[in-house]
């Protein structure tokens, strides 16, 4: 195996790690949704899987389409194929994505609108949860009080995982990321009023609990569903039979 080929593997996995479950706000690679990656002379073929065959087809479609786009951006990937296994709409989604039909094109009369609004809804929730984690951490440090939170700026957050997660979510919904941008804002950037701060933080907590709980649920179901065939869990099977660098 050449050094170049190893690099394609790494790039393919890195590209897949940018694909998030829109609802759980976690990478499909960490959730165990990537079943296999096969790289050959023609291109890349990735198989995805989900916790049950009744996972909502709109979310399934978003992940397949996002994986396709992420892989298509990998230089030298070649022909990209993304296939969803074991889902009640596998055939439809796989054919529609391969043909570049888009969501409405894939589902025809079954889809009334594109999924942009649905995706935005969950991006906003993901932002709310990331904001809550940052606020809770500065409250726990004792440096800030709840009443002072409306004044908190990105500058005031310690560097680290929580802050970079928040920055990514802000970028996704179009919020500014300069150092003096306020942390406690609506999804449209409006600062939270001091009188609302306690209630808004509480609601953000409930959002975070809900998202985290769903992730527990999905991981558990995925493990149960594939216990017989793939007890090792989440690591995808990667094969590379490419003969050229």
């Amino acid at each position, binding site marked *: 195996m050449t050094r170049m080929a190893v690099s394609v593997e790494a790039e393919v996995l890195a590209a897949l790690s940018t694909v998030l479950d829109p609802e759980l706000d976690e990478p499909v690679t960490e959730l165990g949704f990537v079943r296999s990656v096969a790289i050959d002379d023609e291109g890349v073929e990735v198989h995805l899987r989900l916790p049950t065959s009744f996972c909502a087809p709109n979310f399934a479609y978003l992940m397949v389409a996002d994986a396709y786009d992420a892989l298509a951006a990998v230089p030298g990937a070649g022909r990209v194929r993304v296939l969803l296994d074991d889902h009640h709409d596998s055939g439809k989604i796989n054919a529609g994505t391969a043909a570049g039909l888009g969501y409405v094109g894939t589902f025809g009369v*079954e889809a009334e609108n594109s999924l942009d609004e*649905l995706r935005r809804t969950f991006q906003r929730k993901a932002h709310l949860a990331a904001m809550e984690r940052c606020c809770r951490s500065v409250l726990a440090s004792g440096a800030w009080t709840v009443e002072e939170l409306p004044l908190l700026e990105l500058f005031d957050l310690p560097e680290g995982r929580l802050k970079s997660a928040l920055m990514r979510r802000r970028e996704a919904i179009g919020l500014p990321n300069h150092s003096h941008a306020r942390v406690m804002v609506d999804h449209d950037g409006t600062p939270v009023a001091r009188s609302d701060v306690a209630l808004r933080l509480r609601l953000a907590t409930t959002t975070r609990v809900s998202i985290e709980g769903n992730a527990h649920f999905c991981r558990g179901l995925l493990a*149960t569903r594939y216990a017989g065939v793939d007890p090792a869990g989440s690591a995808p099977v990667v094969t590379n039979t490419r003969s050229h660098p």
Partner: protein
Amino acid sequence: MYEKDGEKYYVVDGHVHIWDGRASNHKNVHGKQFIDCFYDYHKNLSPEEVVWDYDTYTYYGAERFMKDLFGEGYVDHAIFQATLLSDFYHNGFGQTEEAFGLTRQHPDKLTYNHAYDPRHGEAGLEQLRRDAERFGLKGVKLYTAEWHGDSRGYKLDEPWSRRYLEECLELGIRNIHVHKGPTIRPLDRDAFDVADIDKVATDYLDLNFVVEHVGLPRLEDFCWIATQESNVYGGLAVAMPFIHTRPRYFAQIIGELLYWIGEDKILFGSDYALWTPKWLVEKFVDFQIPADMPEYAPITTDQKKKILGLNAAALYDLDVPRQLSLPTQAGDADAEVAAGAGAP
């Protein structure tokens, strides 16, 4: 009735089924996928010693149902929630006739809730009137995300749905259970969205809206709505079994619910046979918020009594023996919700 440490609990299981998921009843592959999905839920979230084999799970019948609920499960009264899925099963998934037959044999122990679909228009209204009389309906169970022809679901606040809700008022059907949670084939709309509950709860104050599965995976949307509406309740089916596999997560869910909607609006449900009530009741009575989660107040015995049965008993006018009731009224529609709202 369940008794522990000298405390007695009146138990109402607010969400049970007798289903037939056997291959002989599958209309298509979705019928198999649906029962397989349920079996994965069951295997994933049940303690190992109460996991059934697959064949038992696909069909267990009335005898086992009675034993698991009333013989071993401490249940005083149970409420069937219809799950028809006529597009997936020849003879429906939930077995209407078998369930209704049992309620006739044991009217003191069982209540049957049927379903309607407002997309059936005038003919469906007529059917609802017949069903209300035959089954003596006090409640219905609705799947707003169910597919029907070209339709991908409906909203409770659409004109035809409102006509059905008004008919429920006429017929004395007070309890509208709405499935908002893991669901079947939602598509372009977010089938879990609970915003439609908000609108009709405001307009139909004499109806009680029970959001099954407490809106999971949209807990926060549900809490926000239920905080503002006096007649919105949360059914714990599917949220309950986390008490075993993810007790800290269960603590967060129940903590959030108690904070936002309060102790009078939360209803126990096993979703039998997804899970059997025996272990859920035992674990819930033993359950306490972990000490390192000071953001939630400890759960009191009275709160557990309300959640396990007294709240549902109030909604369904069940006769609770005096020694099992509380001095204060449970399931009180006027109870202040979001009692904790405003605190940090």
